[in-house]
């Protein structure tokens, strides 16, 4: 256990990390991520892209649900808005990706204010139901506003490039998404150590007390909605870049559940936890596929037919088991392990 590191200034207290070891590990991770495309094949690389996109979206959700305590079970709606904005601006209006992707985030954030307004009056379950209703309304509007959104036909994305990176190749897309994920992670970490992040935490823990301490609830709740949905919209835009063809079926209710499962698995309110959760949950179907292929033929009709159900069941089990046995998620597990080794051989 580290001892004797006294914090003497406010700046030291809110620094991202005061440990050189931690920074060294982060540097190692960064190097590994940059080198990854040289070491693995395209399939693994596209999995990595999925993980990174999940990280971006889940960080957005965690800022809202984990940090501010506003429950949203309608994330698929914001993902759909982001994906469609990015795809339509790029294909129908010829916007370059450096403009269409931020636009996806901004539009998603702006629309989230509409959902945020009821949240000023509602708490907990009622808010959750509003967000759910909202996501269905979004899907309906996209499906029926055919002149604008191509309706049931979906949208095909053209090949795009960004600063010379070919985003239609796995490697180009990987570096692009990696860059965005790093930016979003840094933005979220820095938000959390600012006045805004502390205000959000205060609202989550006790909103009346927060208000008594001079936090403008209207402003900070709406800000939480806007920032969170901005990130989720960006994630949606990245999804459209990855899958290249989007239609409304992609954004079903299971996607919202997946987002919730990620932050439950990772740990509420923790960015590091969100990253862990996104990595594990995105790779979970893959792990199931590998395990099952040991026992049954992966081409067997029974398996391919029920792939969606198996995934759903896996998410459900993750949610139930973690909430029951480890409510602070993987990051809590990691803290326990670290504490155990730091205190070894004494238990506490």
């Amino acid at each position, binding site marked *: 256990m580290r001892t004797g590191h006294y914090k003497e200034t406010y700046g030291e207290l809110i620094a991202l990390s005061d440990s050189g070891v931690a920074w060294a590990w982060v540097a190692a991770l960064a190097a590994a991520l940059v080198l990854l495309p040289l070491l693995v094949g395209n399939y693994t690389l596209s999995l990595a892209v999925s993980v990174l996109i999940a990280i971006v979206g889940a960080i957005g959700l965690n800022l809202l649900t984990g940090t501010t305590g506003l*429950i949203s079970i309608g994330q698929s709606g914001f993902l759909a808005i982001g994906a469609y904005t990015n795809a339509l601006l790029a294909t129908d209006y010829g916007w370059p990706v450096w403009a269409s992707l931020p636009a996806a985030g901004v539009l998603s954030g702006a629309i989230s204010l509409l959902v945020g307004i*009821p949240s000023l*009056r509602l708490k907990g379950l009622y808010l959750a139901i509003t967000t759910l209703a909202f996501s269905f309304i979004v899907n309906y509007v996209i499906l029926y506003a055919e002149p604008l959104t191509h309706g049931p036909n979906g949208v095909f994305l053209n090949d795009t490039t960004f600063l010379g990176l070919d985003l239609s190749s796995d490697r180009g897309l990987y570096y692009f998404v990696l860059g965005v994920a790093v930016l979003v992670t840094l933005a979220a970490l820095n938000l959390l150590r600012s006045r805004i992040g502390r205000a959000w935490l205060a609202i989550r823990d006790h909103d009346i007390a927060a*208000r008594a301490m001079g936090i403008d609830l209207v402003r900070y709740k709406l800000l939480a909605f806007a920032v969170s949905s901005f990130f989720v919209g960006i994630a949606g835009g990245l999804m459209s870049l990855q899958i290249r063809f989007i239609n409304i079926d992609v954004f079903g209710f299971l996607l919202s559940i997946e987002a*919730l499962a990620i932050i439950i698995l990772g740990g509420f309110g923790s960015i590091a936890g969100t990253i862990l959760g996104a990595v594990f949950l995105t790779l979970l179907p893959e792990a199931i596929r590998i395990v099952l292929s040991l026992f049954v033929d992966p081409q067997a009709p029974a398996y391919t037919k029920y792939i969606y*159900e198996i995934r*759903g069941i896996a998410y459900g089990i993750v*949610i139930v088991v973690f*909430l029951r046995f480890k409510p602070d998620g993987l990051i809590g597990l990691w803290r326990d392990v670290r504490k155990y080794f730091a205190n070894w051989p004494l238990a506490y």
Partner: protein
Amino acid sequence: MEYFLFLVSSGLVVGATYGLVGMGFAIIYKATGIVNFAQGELLMLTAYIAFSLASSLSLSLVPLMIVTIPIAMVIGIVLERVFIRPMLGEPLFSIVMVTIGLAVILRGVTIMIWGPDPHEFPTGLSTQVVLIGPVPFYQVQLYGLATLAAVTLAAWAFFRFTRLGIAMRAVAANEGAAMLMGIEVSRIHMIAWALAAAVAALAGILFASMFKLGPTIWFEGLRSFPAVILGGLDSVLGAALGGLVVGLIENLAQGYIGQGLREIAGFVVIVVILMLRPYGLFGAREIERV
């Protein structure tokens, strides 16, 4: 006029199933304070079980309901025991999340058992149209309305007159005080789940025999949210009325405003209700405004 009456009648019929599912939501919310997101999946599972019973025993509609209800109640009790009881004392949010997890598990398991193809639900009823005044009804639709009426009446009598019903209301009003008065709260929770599963089974059987039994029938649960929000989350009888109203609104919106509006009219109602009158028409006003 005929078109209007047709929309009203079919709206009321669909609304009856919303009302039944909504009553399930309200029973669990009233007794335990959680919204059970797995209500639609309870409906799905019990409807599929009823389907297997109906095809193997060739029961007609009413006996089928009577046979399915006890099975559904056992399922409700088991789910409460295995998934919800261990979460006692955890934050509300976690328990609600567990019901969401439970929902996807049940959905997946049901589809894996009975397969993804829709089935024609055998009801043994004639498809002859019955005219009530100028409005044509199918027999099964009349059964649906009658079931809602019967269940509503039974629920009213149950909560008004029986010892158990009064105990449930006591638990809803104040769990701690109810416990001090000698009411076994955990047993009340269990019974609430059993009752919710029973009404879910009725709604499932009716819905499947009016339309089809398919793997998307769980969505009926989410579609019933507007009913219970309109009635007030803690008002069991309000949910029944809310169901009828939402069924009407959906059908009229579809018929007069635009294609596909049936799918979301209810959700628009949710957003409007929650902004204007969050406790619904009959719910207790305990929304805390911060």
